[in-house]
Protein backbone atom coordinates (compact mmCIF):
# COMPACT_ATOMS: atom_id res chain seq x y z
CA UNK A 1 0.00 0.00 0.00
CA UNK A 2 1.40 3.33 -0.98
CA UNK A 3 0.31 5.17 2.14
CA UNK A 4 2.06 7.25 4.80
CA UNK A 5 4.24 4.95 6.84
CA UNK A 6 3.42 5.19 10.56
CA UNK A 7 5.56 2.39 11.96
CA UNK A 8 8.81 1.47 10.25
CA UNK A 9 11.27 -1.22 11.33
CA UNK A 10 14.57 -1.39 9.45
CA UNK A 11 17.04 -4.20 9.81
CA UNK A 12 16.01 -4.94 13.38
CA UNK A 13 17.93 -7.61 15.29
CA UNK A 14 17.39 -8.83 18.81
CA UNK A 15 19.08 -11.49 20.91
CA UNK A 16 18.23 -13.16 24.20
CA UNK A 17 21.79 -14.13 25.07
CA UNK A 18 22.77 -16.58 22.36
CA UNK A 19 19.27 -16.83 20.98
CA UNK A 20 18.71 -14.69 17.89
CA UNK A 21 14.99 -13.92 18.26
CA UNK A 22 14.57 -11.22 15.61
CA UNK A 23 16.61 -11.49 12.42
CA UNK A 24 16.89 -8.55 10.02
CA UNK A 25 13.28 -7.52 10.41
CA UNK A 26 11.99 -4.99 7.88
CA UNK A 27 8.38 -3.99 8.31
CA UNK A 28 6.36 -0.93 7.37
CA UNK A 29 2.88 -0.28 8.66
CA UNK A 30 1.00 2.53 6.94
CA UNK A 31 -1.51 4.87 8.55
CA UNK A 32 -4.83 3.12 8.92
CA UNK A 33 -3.42 -0.26 8.02
CA UNK A 34 -4.24 -3.44 9.92
CA UNK A 35 -1.31 -5.83 9.94
CA UNK A 36 -1.78 -9.27 11.44
CA UNK A 37 1.33 -11.13 12.54
CA UNK A 38 1.05 -14.91 12.71
CA UNK A 39 3.47 -17.77 13.10
CA UNK A 40 4.36 -20.72 15.30
CA UNK A 41 5.17 -20.07 18.96
CA UNK A 42 8.74 -19.01 19.51
CA UNK A 43 8.88 -17.38 16.09
CA UNK A 44 9.41 -13.94 17.61
CA UNK A 45 6.04 -12.40 16.80
CA UNK A 46 5.26 -11.20 20.34
CA UNK A 47 8.79 -9.89 20.70
CA UNK A 48 8.37 -7.99 17.44
CA UNK A 49 5.18 -6.43 18.71
CA UNK A 50 6.81 -5.43 22.00
CA UNK A 51 9.84 -3.81 20.36
CA UNK A 52 7.55 -1.26 18.70
CA UNK A 53 6.96 0.57 22.01
CA UNK A 54 10.30 -0.53 23.40
CA UNK A 55 9.02 -2.90 26.05
CA UNK A 56 11.78 -4.98 24.46
CA UNK A 57 15.03 -3.31 23.49
CA UNK A 58 16.78 -4.17 20.23
CA UNK A 59 20.45 -4.79 19.53
CA UNK A 60 20.63 -3.22 16.08
CA UNK A 61 18.47 -1.59 13.45
CA UNK A 62 16.06 1.32 13.64
CA UNK A 63 12.42 1.71 14.58
CA UNK A 64 10.61 4.91 13.68
CA UNK A 65 7.13 6.00 14.64
CA UNK A 66 5.52 8.68 12.56
CA UNK A 67 8.96 9.66 11.30
CA UNK A 68 10.56 9.87 14.75
CA UNK A 69 13.17 7.34 15.79
CA UNK A 70 12.27 5.50 18.97
CA UNK A 71 13.99 7.29 21.89
CA UNK A 72 15.96 5.48 24.59
CA UNK A 73 14.65 5.46 28.19
CA UNK A 74 13.32 8.67 29.67
CA UNK A 75 10.63 11.27 29.16
CA UNK A 76 10.77 11.17 25.36
CA UNK A 77 10.12 7.44 25.38
CA UNK A 78 7.22 7.82 27.80
CA UNK A 79 5.70 10.49 25.54
CA UNK A 80 6.00 8.24 22.57
CA UNK A 81 4.51 5.25 24.37
CA UNK A 82 1.44 7.34 25.12
CA UNK A 83 0.92 7.57 21.36
CA UNK A 84 0.90 3.80 20.91
CA UNK A 85 -1.78 1.78 22.66
CA UNK A 86 -0.95 -1.74 23.76
CA UNK A 87 -3.21 -4.65 24.63
CA UNK A 88 -1.66 -7.64 26.37
CA UNK A 89 -2.46 -11.34 26.40
CA UNK A 90 -2.93 -11.23 30.18
CA UNK A 91 -4.99 -7.97 30.17
CA UNK A 92 -2.83 -6.37 32.88
CA UNK A 93 -5.56 -4.17 34.28
CA UNK A 94 -4.42 -2.41 37.46
CA UNK A 95 -5.70 -4.80 40.12
CA UNK A 96 -6.02 -2.15 42.86
CA UNK A 97 -8.14 0.25 40.79
CA UNK A 98 -11.73 0.12 39.60
CA UNK A 99 -12.58 -0.27 35.93
CA UNK A 100 -13.28 3.45 35.61
CA UNK A 101 -10.04 4.39 37.40
CA UNK A 102 -8.13 2.01 35.14
CA UNK A 103 -9.33 3.90 32.08
CA UNK A 104 -8.93 7.36 33.62
CA UNK A 105 -5.60 7.03 35.44
CA UNK A 106 -3.20 7.66 32.56
CA UNK A 107 -5.45 10.32 31.05
CA UNK A 108 -5.07 12.32 34.26
CA UNK A 109 -1.44 11.54 35.02
CA UNK A 110 0.03 11.45 31.51
CA UNK A 111 -2.33 13.52 29.36
CA UNK A 112 -2.96 15.92 32.29
CA UNK A 113 -6.70 15.98 31.72
CA UNK A 114 -9.01 17.08 34.51
CA UNK A 115 -10.45 14.16 36.45
CA UNK A 116 -14.03 15.01 35.35
CA UNK A 117 -13.10 15.22 31.69
CA UNK A 118 -11.12 12.01 31.92
CA UNK A 119 -13.98 10.17 33.64
CA UNK A 120 -16.45 11.44 31.05
CA UNK A 121 -14.26 10.16 28.23
CA UNK A 122 -13.72 6.88 30.09
CA UNK A 123 -17.47 6.35 30.37
CA UNK A 124 -17.91 7.01 26.65
CA UNK A 125 -15.27 4.41 25.84
CA UNK A 126 -16.65 1.89 28.33
CA UNK A 127 -20.02 2.39 26.69
CA UNK A 128 -18.44 1.74 23.32
CA UNK A 129 -17.04 -1.61 24.49
CA UNK A 130 -20.35 -2.39 26.21
CA UNK A 131 -19.16 -2.22 29.82
CA UNK A 132 -20.47 1.06 31.18
CA UNK A 133 -22.46 -0.81 33.85
CA UNK A 134 -19.24 -2.39 35.20
CA UNK A 135 -17.41 0.92 35.74
CA UNK A 136 -17.22 0.68 39.53
CA UNK A 137 -16.12 -2.94 39.77
CA UNK A 138 -12.59 -4.17 40.26
CA UNK A 139 -10.88 -6.09 37.44
CA UNK A 140 -10.97 -9.42 39.29
CA UNK A 141 -14.78 -9.20 39.39
CA UNK A 142 -14.98 -9.26 35.57
CA UNK A 143 -14.68 -12.14 33.11
CA UNK A 144 -11.59 -12.38 30.93
CA UNK A 145 -13.39 -11.06 27.89
CA UNK A 146 -14.71 -8.09 29.85
CA UNK A 147 -11.26 -7.36 31.26
CA UNK A 148 -9.76 -7.38 27.81
CA UNK A 149 -12.41 -4.97 26.52
CA UNK A 150 -11.63 -2.65 29.43
CA UNK A 151 -7.95 -2.92 28.52
CA UNK A 152 -8.77 -1.86 24.95
CA UNK A 153 -10.80 1.09 26.27
CA UNK A 154 -7.90 2.03 28.55
CA UNK A 155 -5.50 2.10 25.61
CA UNK A 156 -7.94 4.04 23.42
CA UNK A 157 -8.40 6.66 26.13
CA UNK A 158 -4.95 8.00 25.32
CA UNK A 159 -6.09 8.63 21.72
CA UNK A 160 -3.20 6.65 20.30
CA UNK A 161 -2.00 6.87 16.72
CA UNK A 162 -1.63 3.10 16.58
CA UNK A 163 -2.64 0.06 18.61
CA UNK A 164 -0.55 -3.03 19.29
CA UNK A 165 -2.33 -6.25 20.20
CA UNK A 166 -0.13 -8.99 21.67
CA UNK A 167 -2.23 -12.16 21.43
CA UNK A 168 -5.29 -10.42 22.85
CA UNK A 169 -7.53 -13.48 22.80
CA UNK A 170 -5.08 -16.26 23.67
CA UNK A 171 -5.93 -16.27 27.38
CA UNK A 172 -9.70 -16.26 26.85
CA UNK A 173 -12.36 -18.94 26.98
CA UNK A 174 -13.61 -19.68 23.46
CA UNK A 175 -17.00 -18.09 24.11
CA UNK A 176 -15.38 -14.80 25.10
CA UNK A 177 -13.06 -14.50 22.14
CA UNK A 178 -15.72 -13.11 19.87
CA UNK A 179 -16.71 -10.19 22.10
CA UNK A 180 -13.12 -9.00 22.03
CA UNK A 181 -12.69 -9.60 18.31
CA UNK A 182 -15.86 -7.65 17.66
CA UNK A 183 -14.39 -4.61 19.38
CA UNK A 184 -11.22 -5.04 17.34
CA UNK A 185 -13.14 -5.40 14.07
CA UNK A 186 -14.98 -2.18 14.87
CA UNK A 187 -11.66 -0.43 15.51
CA UNK A 188 -10.28 -1.68 12.22
CA UNK A 189 -13.37 -0.39 10.40
CA UNK A 190 -12.90 3.00 12.07
CA UNK A 191 -9.49 3.24 10.47
CA UNK A 192 -7.21 2.61 13.47
CA UNK A 193 -3.66 1.57 12.61
CA UNK A 194 -3.23 -1.85 14.19
CA UNK A 195 -0.54 -4.46 14.59
CA UNK A 196 -2.17 -7.66 15.80
CA UNK A 197 -0.32 -10.77 16.91
CA UNK A 198 -2.92 -13.51 16.96
CA UNK A 199 -3.89 -17.06 16.19
CA UNK A 200 -7.38 -15.99 15.07
CA UNK A 201 -7.26 -16.74 11.38
CA UNK A 202 -10.84 -15.61 10.90
CA UNK A 203 -9.92 -12.14 12.12
CA UNK A 204 -6.86 -12.12 9.88
CA UNK A 205 -8.92 -13.01 6.82
CA UNK A 206 -11.71 -10.57 7.49
CA UNK A 207 -10.00 -7.48 8.93
CA UNK A 208 -6.34 -7.50 7.97
CA UNK A 209 -4.89 -5.50 5.11
CA UNK A 210 -1.76 -7.59 5.29
CA UNK A 211 -0.64 -10.80 6.90
CA UNK A 212 2.93 -11.11 8.10
CA UNK A 213 4.07 -14.68 8.65
CA UNK A 214 7.05 -15.18 10.93
CA UNK A 215 9.19 -18.23 11.62
CA UNK A 216 12.48 -18.52 13.52
CA UNK A 217 12.79 -14.79 14.00
CA UNK A 218 12.36 -13.89 10.34
CA UNK A 219 9.52 -12.47 8.34
CA UNK A 220 8.88 -15.24 5.84
CA UNK A 221 5.86 -13.79 4.06
CA UNK A 222 4.22 -10.37 3.99
CA UNK A 223 1.15 -10.38 1.75
CA UNK A 224 -2.56 -9.75 1.55
CA UNK A 225 -4.67 -12.22 3.55
CA UNK A 226 -6.31 -13.61 0.42
CA UNK A 227 -3.01 -14.45 -1.20
CA UNK A 228 -1.54 -15.78 1.99
CA UNK A 229 -4.36 -18.11 2.94
CA UNK A 230 -5.10 -19.41 -0.56
CA UNK A 231 -1.59 -19.60 -1.97
CA UNK A 232 1.20 -19.34 0.59
CA UNK A 233 4.52 -19.28 -1.23
CA UNK A 234 6.86 -20.72 1.41
CA UNK A 235 6.94 -24.30 2.63
CA UNK A 236 7.12 -23.04 6.21
CA UNK A 237 3.80 -21.20 5.82
CA UNK A 238 2.16 -24.10 3.99
CA UNK A 239 3.18 -26.43 6.79
CA UNK A 240 1.90 -23.99 9.45
CA UNK A 241 -1.43 -23.45 7.72
CA UNK A 242 -2.00 -27.15 7.12
CA UNK A 243 -1.60 -27.72 10.85
CA UNK A 244 -3.93 -25.01 12.06
CA UNK A 245 -6.59 -25.05 9.36
CA UNK A 246 -7.34 -28.77 9.68
CA UNK A 247 -9.74 -28.34 12.56
Amino acid at each position, binding site marked *: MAVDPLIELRNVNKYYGELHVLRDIDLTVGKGEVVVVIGPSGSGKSTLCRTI*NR*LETIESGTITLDGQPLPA*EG*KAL*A*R*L*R*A*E*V*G*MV*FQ*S*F*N*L*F*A*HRTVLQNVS*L*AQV*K*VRKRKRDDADRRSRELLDRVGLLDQADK*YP*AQLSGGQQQRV*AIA*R*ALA*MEPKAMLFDEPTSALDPEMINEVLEVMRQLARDGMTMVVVTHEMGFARASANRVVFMADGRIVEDRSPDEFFTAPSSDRAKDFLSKILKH
Partner: protein
Amino acid sequence: MNVLTDNFSTYGAGFLGTLELTVYASLLALALGFLMASFRVAPVGSLRVFGTAWVTVLRNTPLTLLFFAVLLGLPRFGLVLPFQVFAVLALGCYTSAFVCEALRSGINTVPKGQGEAARSLGMSFGQTLSLVVLPQAFRSVIPPVGSTLIALAKNSAIAGAFSVTELLGTYKTLNELGYNIIWTFVWIAAGYLVITLAISALFHALERTWGVPR
Protein backbone atom coordinates in the same frame (compact mmCIF):
# COMPACT_ATOMS: atom_id res chain seq x y z
CA MET B 1 9.44 -3.51 93.73
CA ASN B 2 9.50 0.22 94.48
CA VAL B 3 12.32 0.65 91.97
CA LEU B 4 9.83 2.02 89.45
CA THR B 5 7.96 4.39 91.71
CA ASP B 6 11.16 5.72 93.33
CA ASN B 7 12.84 6.38 89.99
CA PHE B 8 9.95 7.26 87.78
CA SER B 9 11.75 10.24 86.24
CA THR B 10 14.87 8.20 85.40
CA TYR B 11 12.77 5.49 83.79
CA GLY B 12 10.67 8.14 82.07
CA ALA B 13 13.72 9.85 80.58
CA GLY B 14 15.06 6.50 79.38
CA PHE B 15 11.72 5.49 77.93
CA LEU B 16 11.35 8.80 76.10
CA GLY B 17 14.92 8.49 74.81
CA THR B 18 14.22 5.06 73.35
CA LEU B 19 10.91 6.25 71.97
CA GLU B 20 12.53 9.22 70.26
CA LEU B 21 15.33 7.11 68.80
CA THR B 22 12.76 4.59 67.55
CA VAL B 23 10.43 7.12 65.96
CA TYR B 24 13.09 9.27 64.27
CA ALA B 25 15.19 6.33 63.12
CA SER B 26 12.05 4.56 61.81
CA LEU B 27 11.07 7.58 59.75
CA LEU B 28 14.60 7.82 58.37
CA ALA B 29 14.71 4.07 57.68
CA LEU B 30 11.36 4.13 55.85
CA ALA B 31 12.30 7.13 53.72
CA LEU B 32 15.76 5.81 52.85
CA GLY B 33 14.48 2.26 52.38
CA PHE B 34 11.83 3.52 49.96
CA LEU B 35 14.44 5.52 48.06
CA MET B 36 16.90 2.62 47.89
CA ALA B 37 14.20 0.18 46.77
CA SER B 38 13.33 2.61 43.94
CA PHE B 39 17.02 2.77 43.03
CA ARG B 40 17.32 -1.01 42.99
CA VAL B 41 14.53 -1.42 40.45
CA ALA B 42 15.38 1.73 38.44
CA PRO B 43 16.13 1.53 34.72
CA VAL B 44 19.37 3.48 35.30
CA GLY B 45 22.32 1.18 35.94
CA SER B 46 24.29 3.51 38.22
CA LEU B 47 21.30 3.90 40.56
CA ARG B 48 20.91 0.13 40.77
CA VAL B 49 24.60 -0.21 41.64
CA PHE B 50 24.30 2.47 44.33
CA GLY B 51 21.21 0.81 45.85
CA THR B 52 22.85 -2.60 45.85
CA ALA B 53 26.05 -1.24 47.43
CA TRP B 54 24.03 0.58 50.11
CA VAL B 55 22.18 -2.58 51.09
CA THR B 56 25.25 -4.81 50.96
CA VAL B 57 27.39 -2.55 53.14
CA LEU B 58 24.77 -1.65 55.74
CA ARG B 59 23.08 -5.01 56.04
CA ASN B 60 26.37 -6.84 56.51
CA THR B 61 27.94 -4.48 59.04
CA PRO B 62 27.39 -5.27 62.73
CA LEU B 63 25.33 -2.44 64.18
CA THR B 64 27.81 -1.73 66.98
CA LEU B 65 30.56 -1.32 64.40
CA LEU B 66 28.33 1.05 62.46
CA PHE B 67 27.79 3.12 65.62
CA PHE B 68 31.55 3.37 66.06
CA ALA B 69 31.97 4.34 62.42
CA VAL B 70 29.36 7.08 62.65
CA LEU B 71 30.22 8.44 66.09
CA LEU B 72 33.99 8.34 65.68
CA GLY B 73 34.25 8.55 61.91
CA LEU B 74 32.02 11.44 60.93
CA PRO B 75 33.57 13.96 63.39
CA ARG B 76 36.91 13.32 61.67
CA PHE B 77 35.38 14.71 58.51
CA GLY B 78 34.26 17.78 60.41
CA LEU B 79 30.70 16.63 60.97
CA VAL B 80 30.02 17.17 64.65
CA LEU B 81 26.45 16.56 65.78
CA PRO B 82 24.76 15.66 69.06
CA PHE B 83 25.21 11.96 69.90
CA GLN B 84 21.47 11.39 69.67
CA VAL B 85 21.46 12.56 66.04
CA PHE B 86 24.41 10.29 65.26
CA ALA B 87 22.53 7.39 66.85
CA VAL B 88 19.44 8.11 64.73
CA LEU B 89 21.64 8.22 61.62
CA ALA B 90 23.33 4.91 62.42
CA LEU B 91 20.07 3.12 63.34
CA GLY B 92 18.11 4.63 60.46
CA CYS B 93 20.66 3.85 57.78
CA TYR B 94 21.21 0.34 59.11
CA THR B 95 17.49 -0.45 59.18
CA SER B 96 16.88 1.18 55.78
CA ALA B 97 18.77 -1.70 54.17
CA PHE B 98 16.27 -4.18 55.63
CA VAL B 99 13.28 -1.99 54.75
CA CYS B 100 14.62 -1.71 51.20
CA GLU B 101 14.83 -5.48 50.82
CA ALA B 102 11.34 -5.99 52.27
CA LEU B 103 9.94 -3.42 49.83
CA ARG B 104 11.81 -4.99 46.94
CA SER B 105 10.40 -8.42 47.74
CA GLY B 106 6.96 -6.78 47.76
CA ILE B 107 7.63 -5.22 44.37
CA ASN B 108 8.57 -8.65 43.06
CA THR B 109 5.17 -10.03 44.07
CA VAL B 110 3.44 -7.60 41.69
CA PRO B 111 3.11 -9.23 38.26
CA LYS B 112 5.48 -7.75 35.68
CA GLY B 113 2.56 -7.02 33.38
CA GLN B 114 1.29 -4.33 35.76
CA GLY B 115 4.41 -2.27 35.25
CA GLU B 116 4.45 -2.97 31.52
CA ALA B 117 0.85 -1.82 31.17
CA ALA B 118 1.63 1.39 33.05
CA ARG B 119 4.69 2.09 30.92
CA SER B 120 2.83 1.30 27.71
CA LEU B 121 0.36 4.05 28.65
CA GLY B 122 3.20 6.55 28.79
CA MET B 123 3.73 6.70 32.54
CA SER B 124 7.20 7.60 33.70
CA PHE B 125 9.23 5.26 35.87
CA GLY B 126 8.27 7.25 38.97
CA GLN B 127 4.56 7.20 38.09
CA THR B 128 4.63 3.49 37.33
CA LEU B 129 6.23 2.80 40.68
CA SER B 130 4.15 5.16 42.81
CA LEU B 131 0.73 4.74 41.14
CA VAL B 132 0.71 1.11 40.10
CA VAL B 133 3.45 -1.06 41.56
CA LEU B 134 4.04 0.20 45.11
CA PRO B 135 0.37 0.44 46.13
CA GLN B 136 0.05 -3.23 45.24
CA ALA B 137 3.40 -4.15 46.77
CA PHE B 138 2.60 -2.27 49.96
CA ARG B 139 0.12 -4.74 51.33
CA SER B 140 2.46 -7.68 51.24
CA VAL B 141 5.32 -5.78 52.89
CA ILE B 142 3.40 -4.53 55.94
CA PRO B 143 4.27 -7.56 58.14
CA PRO B 144 8.02 -7.72 57.34
CA VAL B 145 8.42 -3.94 57.67
CA GLY B 146 6.67 -4.15 61.07
CA SER B 147 9.16 -6.80 62.22
CA THR B 148 12.03 -4.68 60.98
CA LEU B 149 10.87 -1.65 62.97
CA ILE B 150 10.42 -3.78 66.10
CA ALA B 151 14.01 -4.92 65.66
CA LEU B 152 15.00 -1.28 65.33
CA ALA B 153 13.33 -0.40 68.64
CA LYS B 154 15.35 -3.10 70.40
CA ASN B 155 18.56 -2.29 68.55
CA SER B 156 18.31 1.26 69.87
CA ALA B 157 19.67 -0.14 73.17
CA ILE B 158 23.14 -0.02 71.61
CA ALA B 159 22.94 3.78 71.65
CA GLY B 160 23.11 3.62 75.44
CA ALA B 161 26.71 2.48 75.20
CA PHE B 162 27.45 5.75 73.39
CA SER B 163 26.11 8.05 76.12
CA VAL B 164 22.71 8.55 74.52
CA THR B 165 19.89 8.57 77.05
CA GLU B 166 17.76 5.50 76.45
CA LEU B 167 15.91 2.85 78.38
CA LEU B 168 18.46 0.08 78.80
CA GLY B 169 21.12 2.53 79.99
CA THR B 170 19.04 3.42 83.04
CA TYR B 171 20.11 0.17 84.69
CA LYS B 172 23.60 1.58 85.31
CA THR B 173 22.24 4.48 87.33
CA LEU B 174 19.80 2.31 89.26
CA ASN B 175 22.37 -0.39 89.92
CA GLU B 176 24.73 2.14 91.43
CA LEU B 177 21.90 3.32 93.68
CA GLY B 178 21.69 -0.24 94.98
CA TYR B 179 18.33 -1.34 93.64
CA ASN B 180 17.55 -4.99 92.96
CA ILE B 181 18.97 -5.70 89.52
CA ILE B 182 16.19 -8.17 88.62
CA TRP B 183 13.38 -5.70 89.20
CA THR B 184 15.36 -2.99 87.44
CA PHE B 185 15.47 -5.13 84.32
CA VAL B 186 11.85 -6.26 84.61
CA TRP B 187 10.71 -2.66 84.35
CA ILE B 188 13.13 -1.96 81.52
CA ALA B 189 11.74 -4.97 79.65
CA ALA B 190 8.22 -3.72 80.28
CA GLY B 191 9.19 -0.39 78.74
CA TYR B 192 10.44 -2.08 75.58
CA LEU B 193 7.27 -4.19 75.44
CA VAL B 194 5.13 -1.04 75.47
CA ILE B 195 6.98 0.26 72.41
CA THR B 196 7.19 -3.00 70.46
CA LEU B 197 3.58 -3.96 71.16
CA ALA B 198 2.49 -0.52 70.01
CA ILE B 199 4.38 -1.04 66.75
CA SER B 200 2.73 -4.47 66.28
CA ALA B 201 -0.70 -2.99 66.92
CA LEU B 202 -0.06 -0.19 64.44
CA PHE B 203 0.99 -2.63 61.72
CA HIS B 204 -1.95 -4.93 62.45
CA ALA B 205 -4.26 -1.98 61.94
CA LEU B 206 -2.47 -1.03 58.71
CA GLU B 207 -2.77 -4.57 57.45
CA ARG B 208 -6.48 -4.63 58.15
CA THR B 209 -7.34 -1.27 56.60
CA TRP B 210 -5.07 -1.54 53.58
CA GLY B 211 -6.98 -4.46 52.14
CA VAL B 212 -7.43 -4.24 48.38
CA PRO B 213 -10.57 -5.80 46.95
CA ARG B 214 -9.35 -8.33 44.44
